[in-house]
């Protein structure tokens, strides 16, 4: 090798490499796409949009990939199924975890609990994001900032309230928490109170956007927080003010709808006097999904009927029996189960069935689908024919979450395999406020005030105009006739019905030839007898028992029952006698139910979260008593 060539060799190598790399480090900077950094949000518009995102977590959906029902804000699993209002329904092989929860056999590994935990903390985290960003915003005055902060803290209070009643001991994370792995060794009630108090102090009484929260909602939530802690006097002070002066975000004074049912009717949401704090749902919102369409309870429609899915959430016989009334039209808290309301479990779909003729509270038939009774405007409920596994879960269907036939194009959202609806979920409705106020007054010994509140609630449903009537069957009847011959001449198919104005009843074609009268089942209007409590209440315990029972009737299937039973301290006796009563009717479902005191009051901390909290070999999160 000559020296000359060696130099050239070296020269070329250096040249080639140098040319390629020179000045190109910035080539590797690829900015994020399709997302925003915090800087871009640090202004009024950004923070308000972030706040709307914090509202967006209220429905619990599209946040955690698990069963939508596990994170439903209505707590239909954790409140109503667990509280004995309903069975899981559907089929036994599916979502077995719901059955375990319904039987108080929840264990820390049930993924649904982890999903609920995560969905709620996502809500917390979104509110914290708002509160963290606020100080960095320069184009807002302090007043507006406080209002935004108040809304965020109201929502945070709500998310923590849910966590508290589900899991009791939970870690507190706020906008100042640096290490998000915090222990659950402190009672967070005081923190929740603080959030609601801040909200009361800084929120306006009305809002231009109906779906936002206001000062009165915050008062009602704080009062509920007091009631859960048995702080009766502060609760009473708030309730007096709320019931006297409270208004909705739209400025409508708090009150009860004329019709019980209007609470579950999207057409009546605007101007509702009863919606204190409701989670807004929409249908056909243009997203092509049902994520904002009350997705959490989409599986809870009767099966085999006009709804595309799924047969979950079947009311219990015990709940149905609760609506029996005595001859005075009053509930029978002590012996409602003495005689069951008869059902069609042992009756073939095409055999004759005579619905219960004893006296009933009319709210039953706005709460439960049962054979022979108008199911909104969908016709007489066919009973077990619409149950997926009646032997396991009974013959009944849910109703408060179901849309009307006449409204289906508007309020049902069929962009998925199960229907979404625009039916809002009322976290707190005014009837609930009145009954909590009644409870508060009774605890303080003001039994007459308590009775008045209860009667105000009962009075609404005692009004005959709000009852389920035979007329409901008219809209989609195959015929409305005033004589038998016209009915026999109709071209009804099995499953069709004819309304008979001459008998104020509905005839349902069970099978075969409509010309044969024996193929028809006549359903008469149920025998509703309901009155307010007369005369003064004298005994505190009796008063409380009546108030508790009134809550069961008024708020059944709305996700409250289990949490009420726990805070009243009667979960053990109530649920265990429920299992004893209900179990023998069914093959599966409640057969194995058992409430264990000092354990089942709260759900277990999800095992997954405990595992994730391990630091140096030790978990920071502590499991609730009784679970391991």
């Amino acid at each position: 090798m000559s020296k000359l060539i060696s130099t050239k060799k070296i020269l070329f190598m250096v040249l080639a490499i140098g040319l390629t790399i020179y000045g190109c480090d910035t080539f590797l900077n690829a900015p994020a796409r399709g997302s925003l950094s915090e800087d871009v949000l640090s202004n009024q518009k950004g923070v308000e949009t972030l706040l709307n995102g914090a509202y967006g977590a209220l429905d619990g959906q599209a946040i955690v990939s698990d069963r939508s029902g596990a994170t439903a804000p209505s707590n239909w699993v954790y409140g109503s199924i667990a509280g004995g209002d309903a069975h899981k329904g559907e089929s036994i092989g599916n979502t077995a975890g719901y059955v375990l929860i319904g039987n108080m056999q929840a264990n820390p590994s049930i993924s649904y609990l982890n999903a609920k935990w995560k969905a709620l903390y996502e809500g917390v985290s979104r509110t914290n994001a708002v509160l963290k960003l606020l100080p960095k915003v320069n184009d807002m005055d302090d007043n507006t900032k406080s209002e935004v902060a108040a809304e965020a803290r109201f929502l945070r209070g709500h998310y923590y309230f849910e966590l508290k009643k589900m899991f009791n001991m939970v870690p507190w994370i706020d906008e100042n928490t640096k290490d998000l792995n915090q222990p659950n060794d402190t009672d967070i009630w005081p923190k929740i109170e603080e959030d609601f108090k801040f909200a009361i102090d800084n929120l306006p009484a009305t809002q231009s956007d109906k779906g936002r929260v206001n000062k009165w909602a915050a008062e009602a939530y704080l009062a509920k927080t007091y009631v859960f802690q048995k702080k009766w006097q502060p609760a009473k002070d708030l309730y007096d003010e709320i019931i006297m002066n409270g208004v909705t975000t739209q400025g409508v004074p708090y009150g009860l709808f004329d019709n019980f049912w209007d609470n579950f009717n999207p057409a009546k949401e605007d101007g509702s006097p009863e919606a204190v704090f409701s989670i807004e749902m929409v249908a056909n919102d243009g997203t092509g999904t049902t994520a904002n369409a009350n997705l959490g309870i989409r599986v809870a429609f009767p099966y085999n009927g006009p709804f595309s899915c799924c047969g979950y959430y079947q009311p219990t016989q015990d709940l149905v029996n609760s609506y029996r009334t005595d001859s005075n039209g009053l509930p029978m808290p002590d012996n409602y189960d003495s005689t069951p309301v008869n059902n069609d479990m042992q009756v073939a779909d095409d055999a004759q069935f005579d619905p219960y003729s004893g006296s009933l509270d009319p709210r039953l038939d706005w709460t439960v689908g049962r054979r022979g009774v108008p199911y909104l405007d969908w016709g007489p409920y066919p009973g077990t024919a619409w149950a997926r596994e009646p032997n396991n879960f009974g013959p009944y269907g849910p109703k408060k979450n179901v849309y009307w036939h006449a409204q289906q194009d508007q309020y049902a959202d069929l962009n998925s395999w199960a229907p979404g609806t625009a039916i809002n979920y009322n976290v707190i409705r005014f009837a609930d406020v009145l009954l909590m106020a009644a409870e508060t007054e009774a605890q303080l010994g003001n039994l007459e005030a308590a009775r008045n509140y209860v009667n105000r609630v009962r009075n609404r449903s005692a009004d005959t105009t709000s009852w389920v009537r035979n007329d409901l069957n008219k809209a989609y009847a195959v015929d409305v006739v005033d004589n038998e011959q016209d009915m026999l001449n109709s071209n009804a198919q099995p499953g069709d019905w004819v309304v008979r104005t001459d008998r104020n009843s509905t005839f349902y074609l069970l099978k075969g030839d409509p010309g044969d009268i024996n193929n028809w089942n006549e359903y008469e209007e149920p025998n509703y007898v309901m009155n307010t409590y007369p005369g003064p209440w004298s005994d505190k315990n009796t008063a409380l028992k009546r108030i508790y029972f009134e809550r069961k009737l008024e708020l059944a299937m709305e996700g409250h029952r289990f949490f009420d039973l726990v805070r009243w301290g009667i979960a053990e006796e109530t649920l265990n006698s429920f299992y004893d009563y209900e179990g023998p009717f069914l093959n599966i479902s409640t057969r194995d139910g058992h409430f264990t005191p000092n354990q089942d009051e709260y759900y277990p901390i999800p095992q997954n979260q405990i595992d994730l909290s391990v630091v140096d070999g030790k978990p920071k999160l502590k499991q609730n008593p009784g679970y391991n």
Partner: protein
Amino acid sequence: MGIMNKSTQNKKVKCFFWLKRMFPVTLFIMIFVGVSYGQNSFTVSGTVTEQSTSNPLPGVNILVVGTTNGTATNTDGQYQVNANSPNDSLRFSYIGYQEKIVPINGRHNINVTLSPSTFSGQEVVVVGYSSQERQNISGSVDIVDVDNLTTGTSGDVSKQLQGRASGVNVISSGQPGEDPMVRIRGINTFGNNSPLYIVDGVPTQSINNLNPDDVESMQVLKDAAAASIYGSRASNGVIIITTKNGGNEGVKVEYKGYASYDVPKGGNVWNILSPQEMADLKWQAIRNSGGNPAPDPQYGSGSEPVLPDYILPAGAMEGDIDPSSYYVVPEYSDAQLVNTFHQIVRANKSGTNWYDQIFSPALSMNHELAVSGGGENGSFRVSFSHLDRQGTLDRTYNRRSSIRANTQFNVNDNIRIGENMTFTVQQSPQVNALSEGSPIGMAYRSQPIIPVYDIKGNFAGSAGPQLGQARNPVAMLYRRRNNSAKNSRLFGNAFAEVDFLDNFTFKTNLGGELSSGTNHSFTYPEYENAENNTVNSFNANSSYGYNWIVTNTLDYKEMLGKVHSVEILLGTEAYQNRGQVVGGSTNDFFSFNPYYTNLSTGSGNKTNYSYIYDQRLLSLFGRVDYSYDNKYIFSATLRRDGSSKFENYKWGMFPAGSFAWRISQENFMKNVKWISDLRIRVGYGIMGNQLNVDPNNPYTLFAGNPASSYYPRTGSNNSVQLGFEQSRIGNPDAKWEKNKSGNIGIDATLFQDKLNITAEYYWKDIQDLLYNPELIGTAGTASQPYINVGNMKNKGVDATISTNGTLGGAWQYNASVNFTSYNNKIARIANNIEYFNQDSRRFSGSYIIRNEVGHAVSSYYGYKIDGFFNSQSEIDNLNASSPNGLYQNDARVGVYRYADINGDGQITPDDRTFLGNPNPDFTYGINFGLNFKNFDFSTFIYGSQGNDIWNQVKWWTDFYADFAGAKSKAALYDSWTPNNHDASLPIQSTGGGFSVSTVPNSYFVEDGSYLRVKNVILGFTLPNNVLSKVGISRLRLYAQVSNLFTITGYSGLDPEIGGTSTDFGIDEGSYASSRQFLFGINLSL
């Protein structure tokens, strides 16, 4: 970041353009330099003959090594070629024969004999950025016999790799066009484990556009020493593919074509009961549960079930039905109309075989036409191919047309420029097999009493009580008929190469691809099922993407003295991958006519979406090879890679080194006649990976998501308002995964090249594995960042043995066996995370797969069955000795008794245990070929040993309580009864539960070992003297049977079950490979 600062942006843009400009600039420099250092030529001629017969060999390729100068022998086996200098070497290659490299050494006449191929140490193979003689490779490189690849007929190169190279595991299915799972030496990461393919110097993740006949050579780089020069993306192994170029003489036209006939499995593949047996099972199960089955809506109210004449209306008999009341509008647009339908469905009492209804024999064909040629100034090869591969599952296929043009020009004696370019158009609609919701899933879920069609010829389904909720699979496939998925891809490279200063070669290569795809699908409303989709909707999307890569290498090669051989390679590389996708959907169409439906004509909600991606890499690399007297071979590589996916640690360094000792070259071995070649190799190095990281990983980000963060603040019932949520938590500190791997190998060529053995042992320790561990719930649900926490280990043995020879006379044979094994273990996942679960299927909340430290990926986890509870007293006794008085939840007579693994006297979640895993102990391929005169015969056998399968199909078919679908013979005849304790299934009852099938248990695990005769081929080449008269140089006809038979104990359809890296081997209805009969023709002019 949402907004970039301006100066960065400007700089970036400049740099970007600069990189692209670099290609022509370097090209110019090279031409300039190359011209100045041009050399004179030296002519060589001679004859090539076949070793054993001494017949002249026509068509042998001859190449001047290190150049593209070359030619081919004529019909008399003669050639003439121009070399650059008397010191060059010539490479003689001919398909089916050992390649030979002969130094010219100043001779003008060189005669050569070639022997049939087995192994040749002098074979030149393409490895990282350059070519090397095989005997000088010290890393682990498996050279795939490309001829064998084309005998498979899936049309997919990567599928045909199965069993063809040691160290490579391939799991594929019978679905045309589906990318198989390809794994090189085990599992390297929790994310993407696909190897890196380098096609003509251009990296890509998928080679499904490649026509197997276009492949000239294929090398698998298995260890770090071989692969780490591809640093950044080499961790999963590298497969280097070179496509064919033209010969050096005249014009040659080749036609290859075949037609094939695929026959699916027949018979009752899932052992489904007849309708009467289904009814019997149902009643038995209800009675077993203490219930009374009568009255039953379908089976009457007698003491035994009676099949109805009609299932809709339920249980109706002839005479009950008034056909005039039938009312169904199959293509309805008002979603609510379905509630007014009155469908009449006759029971299929003899039973519908749903598998037969959706699988049928399929006729496929493939044509390829190639024109190639060349001369002193260059060469070309243009090929056109058309594949029409029909799947046995109706309406699945792979249609692919491609055109390839490879050209090379010798501008000068020392300058070569060229390009390889292919354009492919592909259409391959596929089903998502291995899932309950696919048409295959629906086929085993649909009850046999349901007919395919109702009385008026519309579809029948599960509508009606007690018929389950499966969808009619025939209808599902029919409704996909107008859906379309088309992709086109332009892929290739252009290069320029210059030799200068005697020892230097500079090469610049610009490669890349341009791809676009468009899909549209229409969803029809359904009316026949229990759970109908009632809306009609239309989805469409289209994607556009491109990536480019610029590589510059400078290669210096010199012999220093007589014994020191040195090669130094330096290179740089820049890569960018960009693209975007736009799509939308709408619904509510006035007409479903496919000519009418598009995104504009739907009257319902219109949604749209789009996204853009952009990733970049920048690299510097170098390699030094040194060999002393062809005895001691050292190689060292170093690569430095930068990735845009990382923020604070963009750059990673990937070194590797290897050493080979050719013992046979030592003097003391020279006398050992039976050893032709013997080498020992060791290598160690680090490879990198960043495939699994989201490009946004470094950043904390916010975004709006209509589903999760929008809210109807105004209280509206039909509109939502924008809301933001935190979408990602950033980790600016993520860095490269490091795959540290070592390799020890031995290569031996024995008995005069008759027997070749390669055996290797390897170990890999993959550190800083990028994993996105679940964050604690209190952190919210924003996407968790990838962090470098994991650690995985693999070790195993690969081996290949091959032999060839003659059996006297004209009988020639060759045989080879390859063996692949890996042992995978997860060594670490993340802080405090010992495992992560995957795949719950129908076990709601319990998971089948547990990836746990100390175990192989994708391990099955659950309760181990320890017989049945045969009596109440057995249960009572167990309860009595249990600490809580309860041995097992849900225990009752006749259900599974689980093993008390931890011995605490009760069954708790702690008693779950590992039940197997889908990783095979080893896999093997056996190839055997036999030639007799003009006949050739070959067969290929592939096998996998020790892989377990989770047969989830059994969940649906074997337990009465699990969904009311079709049930199996086992459910009725092999379940526990008071008289049959020796059963495999628990008592059939209406209640499932913990002790039956609601938690994963060992019932579902089966041994999936198998041996499959993948190919048997018989070919006949017409004699030359016949052909030459009609101007044909070669004509071969052949017949082939693929998947002739499979020996396995697995009860499912097919034991080859794929999935994802950390979750595979779960069979929930597979698209099985079918038996294929094929006739083909190869013709050369």
